[in-house]
């Protein structure tokens, strides 16, 4: 992977191909992620949006190989990082990649830190796992990292415990931990959901700064379309374990194609405009055991659903502008045999 930047035919940083992740419920496997494919290019921020239960987090756990053992497993498909297949790597090899090349920040800054160890200890642990450093060097590096994420009393915070910090500060510590080894890819799973808006603004600014400085790619998982519009380059909309739409951020917000995306956007109140009624989507995301076998999974909630939507499964396909959508309203989404008929 020593391609120079001028090389046009470089591999994407991360390739997910036909990923299917299943959970076993009462002896039967049910796909929480069902045939998801996408690429993440170097230095890009890719947003993944959708309601709870859409498989956003399961997908990221699959990439990191962090699925709960014995319950969830990858059934099909592959995850390539810099061209190397992460499937089938044992824990030892995976641990060399986790934290160093790919790292992750979670939604809950309260529960992701160990309450009985100091901040410094937990950060040093990451460094010791991947580099040979003396105690003194490690501590210096930790103080550096903490100042880099905007913590003002870094030399004192290292000796404090997580409960002594506020939510925003803890999320900063999590970010410091995630970027400690300058990863090429950061998976941020709802990193600002538990935070107040002014703190959210600080954290988003920080993430964008670090991203530019380190030329790092970010997969940004969130349900907040506002956050997506301000941070991401590209957006993937997921519904019930499948990608329903994928395009760059400008195009998605100016001309959403999938009815689900349209409704999602109509449902959020906005500061700039006053709507009398907000768009609503009837019903809820079907649970794993009740997923329809064929057809579009959104069909039973879709106001534009046609008869065939429950019998023909739409495929994700590009239109002329490079806007990918999986909906039978668009010719490109019809499976081939349908077109022939």
């Amino acid at each position, binding site marked *: 992977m020593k391609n120079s930047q001028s090389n046009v035919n470089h591999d994407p940083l991360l390739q997910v191909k036909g990923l299917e992740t299943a959970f076993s419920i009462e002896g039967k496997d049910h796909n929480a992620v069902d045939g998801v494919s996408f690429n993440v290019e170097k230095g890009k921020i890719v947003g993944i949006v959708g*309601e*709870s239960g859409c498989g956003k987090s399961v997908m990221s756990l699959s990439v990191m190989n962090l699925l709960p053992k014995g319950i969830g497993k990858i059934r099909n498909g592959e995850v390539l990082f810099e061209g190397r297949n992460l499937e089938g790597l044992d824990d030892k090899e995976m641990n060399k990649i986790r934290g160093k090349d790919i790292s992750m920040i979670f939604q809950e800054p309260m529960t992701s830190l160990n309450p009985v160890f100091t901040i410094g200890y937990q950060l040093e642990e990451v460094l010791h796992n991947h580099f040979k450093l003396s105690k003194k060097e490690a501590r210096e590096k930790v103080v550096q990292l903490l100042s880099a994420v905007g913590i*003002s009393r870094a030399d004192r915070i290292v000796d404090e415990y997580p409960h002594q910090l*506020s939510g*925003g*500060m803890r999320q900063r510590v999590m970010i410091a931990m995630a970027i400690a080894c300058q990863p090429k890819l950061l998976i941020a799973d709802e990193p600002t959901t538990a935070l*107040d*808006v*002014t*703190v*959210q*603004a*600080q954290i*988003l*600014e920080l993430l964008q700064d670090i991203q530019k400085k380190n030329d790092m790619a970010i997969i940004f998982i969130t*349900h*907040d*379309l*506002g*956050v*997506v*519009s*301000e*941070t991401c380059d590209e957006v993937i909309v997921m519904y019930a374990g499948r990608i329903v739409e994928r395009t760059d*951020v*400008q195009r998605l*917000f*100016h001309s959403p194609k999938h009815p689900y995306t349209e*409704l*999602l*956007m*109509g*449902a*959020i*109140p*906005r*500061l*700039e*405009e*006053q*709507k009398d*009624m*907000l*768009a*609503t*989507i009837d019903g*809820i995301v079907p649970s794993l055991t009740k997923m329809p076998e064929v057809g579009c999974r959104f069909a039973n909630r879709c106001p534009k659903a046609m008869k065939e939507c429950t019998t023909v499964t739409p495929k994700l396909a590009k239109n002329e502008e490079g806007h990918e959508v999986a909906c039978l309203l668009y010719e490109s989404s019809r499976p081939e045999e349908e077109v022939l008929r």
Partner: protein
Amino acid sequence: MSITELNKAQTEKLLEVNDLKMHFPVKGGFFKRTIGAVKAVDGVSFDIKKGETLGLVGESGCGKSTTGRSILRLLDPTDGEVLFNGEDITKLTGKRLRDIRQDIQMVFQDPYASLNPMQMVGDIVSEPIKNYHKNRKGEELKAEVMDLLTRVGLPEDAYYKYAHEFSGGQRQRIGIARALALKPKLIIADEPVSALDVSVQSQVLNLLNELQDEFDLTYLFIAHDLSVVKHMSDRIGVMYLGNIMEVANKSSIYAEPLHPYTQALISAVPDASKIGQKRERIVLEGDVPSPENPPSGCPFHTRCPKAMDECSKTKPQLKEVKPGQHVACLLYE
């Protein structure tokens, strides 16, 4: 002001809160003596007119929920008065307090924790009615409750189900039906949609708006999400560290926020309608100070980008700077 004028002014205002304070004692030491106080609400004043929705917005820990709870006397305020139809709730006891609570009901944030898992939905919703109207029972009561359930968009057979059988949005509807059961005049909605997904959130917001017209309700709408508060409210109060920094009707507060905190708060909201435009975001430094030891003078001066020397000395009072727009900031003295 003559007495008749005074009465008239008060009938227009359904709720008037004057200098409300809620201090929680901090105990410590060997004898568990009071060694300090968390000033969760520290002198809040506002009023709500009949049929109006007042939004209270602010970050976590700013005292907005405590304000809501003190109005209902779920917490006993330390100081100040809460006038409901001209009657001071803080001084009421016994039967009169019980009676007035019929008129003020609450919708809670967590639809999972605020419904009794051991009760049928029908029992949850009819409990307030049974509590206040002993003569209403049997089929008549059941019909009334079923009517309420259908009104909030639940099927009639929800009556016989338990809360765990419903999704978050449906549970919030049960909570709303319970709040409506006594035909209240004022509903205090404390973060009613923050636990819900966007598509469900919009259903509940639409429902609250419809019910307001139908039942002639007045809302105190408490939330941290500015876009949601703007969508719901006629006027908005911005709180910070137990104080109201600015109150105005929603169009002026968003078009021209006057208080530096309001400005920062609004600029921090990620907004999808501004896509592609680079905009200047005011990013505040640091965290909200502890309400146990709030800064002297203006509570916001430690983080305010426009702070002056005197801000740490003088606490600004809420003043009408423009018609209908009240601001507590020394910049506008």
